[in-house]
């Protein structure tokens, strides 16, 4: 099972904190699309632009590693991987 945790505004707008998905071999993008289906509301739209690229400032960590340093949304996942998704933020 891959665990996906949504953080901050995304968590609030989706009304969900954590989901688990059974998809060995799937990518981060696949898994997020599956969450979208299960929730019946857009998820990727919060994170990508019209071209499907990650918005600047989206932070997706797979087992603590930023997917920008892996294969982005195309990062392949293994069972038991933990994905944490932060929508863009700034300030502080």
């Amino acid at each position, binding site marked *: 099972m891959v665990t996906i945790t949504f953080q901050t505004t995304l968590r609030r707008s989706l009304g969900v904190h954590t989901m688990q998905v059974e998809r060995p071999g799937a990518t981060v993008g696949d898994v997020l699309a599956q969450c979208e289906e299960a929730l019946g509301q857009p998820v990727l739209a919060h994170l990508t632009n019209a071209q499907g690229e990650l918005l600047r400032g989206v932070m997706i960590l797979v087992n603590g590693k*930023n997917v920008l340093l892996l294969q982005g949304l195309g990062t392949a996942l293994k069972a038991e991987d933990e994905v944490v998704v932060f929508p863009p933020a*700034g*300030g502080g």
Partner: protein
Amino acid sequence: MFAGGYWGKILRVNLTNKTYAVEELPRETANQFLGGMGFAVHYLYKELTPGIDPLSPENKLAVFPGPFTGTNVPCSSRIAFAAKSPLTGALGVALSGGYFPAELKFAGFDGIIVEGKAEKPTYIFIQDGKVLFRNAQRMWGSTTSDCQVMIKHDLGDQNVRIACIGPAGEKLSHMACIINERRAAGRKGLGAVMGSKNLKAIVVRGNQQVPISNAEALKEARSTMAKAMKASPVLYPQFSKLGTAMVVDHLSAMGMLPMNNWSETGTAPVEENIGVAKQEELKVGKEHCHSCPVGCTQQLITRKGPRAGILGEPEYESFYSLGSTTGVSDVGEISASDRLCDELGLDTMSAGVCVGFAMELAQKGLLPKEQHEGLDLSFGNATTQYELIRRMALREPGLGELLTNGTRQAAKKLGGEAWKYAMHVKGLELPAYDVRGAMAHGLNYATSFTGADHNRGYAIQEIFSVPVPYPVDKDSIEGKGALTKWNQDIGTGTCDCATICAFMLTIAMPDTIVECTAAMATALTGVTFTADDVWRIGERVNNLAKAFNCREGFSRKEDTLPWRVMHEPLKAGLSKGGVISPEKLDTMLDEYYTVRGWDKTTSAPTKETLLALNLPEAARDLYGA
């Protein structure tokens, strides 16, 4: 002499003799240092004698807006206050926004240098090229809001803009800030420098329009900036509505919001108590700085308890310093404490960190019970926090006196192991990011010339995953020396010197701000600035500031981090296990000094580096003729 942006005039005020002079701003100075913090560092380096007491008449207060200030460049009303800092002993710079910066430009000046010491409490009134020295005896002792009310009444003018100190500055608290309207040049104790000069306030009023060299070109450059601002997924959709404190949730979820004096970071989420949803319940309005279409300042009203009815404007930093790090978990209480600090003229950040420090020492038995003065020093006690702020600001004997000069001095007085829990670098208390989860941010705290300062070298790549100039692994130390230099120089060259609000760099346009700054500076002033020039200015200012500190005796050993950050890994949360061990810090420092062209043993810029940056005076001072 200048076609726009600058007036070409620096006002020099001598409080001892009650005299002033208007000096020409040399074109070379504008070319080399651009304005704002650049001018402040340049003049203070040139004019301050090494080794002076920061609270003596020999120290000077430099007050410099940028060439953009007072124009219609978005978010450009910023001003650098600078002096040798009583808190750190290093060069201290703090920037503020609001309306005072623009008004100083309208009054016809590119900056002010205040010297000497007034015989009696004084405020200076600058209006359209003239200066009046006014008696501030009646305002002495007043809070910062009341001081502004009294001065407006005294002058019979409701439209003056005022930068003043509260009782904390008068009492020479090393954490005293300068307040204009309700904004703060918060850090490094610059309010005490004003207090030491018997200077209660600087008041400005002006009617002159800042000239623009090429209005068409400026319009074009501005529209590039406006487009970038609109394209940001954060600036208008979120930040404008929620302000800086929107990131309480983000940093807490990252396990990087320091809790209980950094002893419990990551152990529990705090969003439920002090996150955005809770903040919104108390929100009553928002404020803008001059020329800012964003308006990020959120106004909150405390609704219950003994402090009901108080209107605060707490930033993210206060949700940490007066919230998570003192264990206070009520938004209304944090907001009220924030307001009290502003009114008494105390830096909210250092003040809160001092409270958290005292609480942890009490818990550990390092602050003996007989010194608690009847206060319950448990983490989370908001009433104790409120009372300690008052005692520190008024330098009351006992705990107030002990803490009012910051954690470094307090730890020294207490002795024993207290120093291990004093969360400061170079005497400046740490901001709201537990850097055990962000290595470059930590390296910046260690190396910033001002001490632990999030306003220099903010690592957006680590904190917000912004892939500019490239994406990074926040937990890795690799390449963090070069990244820290990049972050420090870009912020200095653009935001701190030009001047532009730092959120335009960190949120809206990290990828285009340098080019945009160069284009706007050229259009405004008629002096050609390239993107390379802007980078170079940032680098030059950071080198000169470092040379200032070296001249004061600073060396590699001061470029360090608190014991806890280096020896206690984060216990829990998303950044669990994170630590910046002495070995990691050393590796990052070596790389940082190498990319900077600084000597790895002394940390000083090498002679070649200084000469290459056209800083021959600093090269002479550090290395002889």
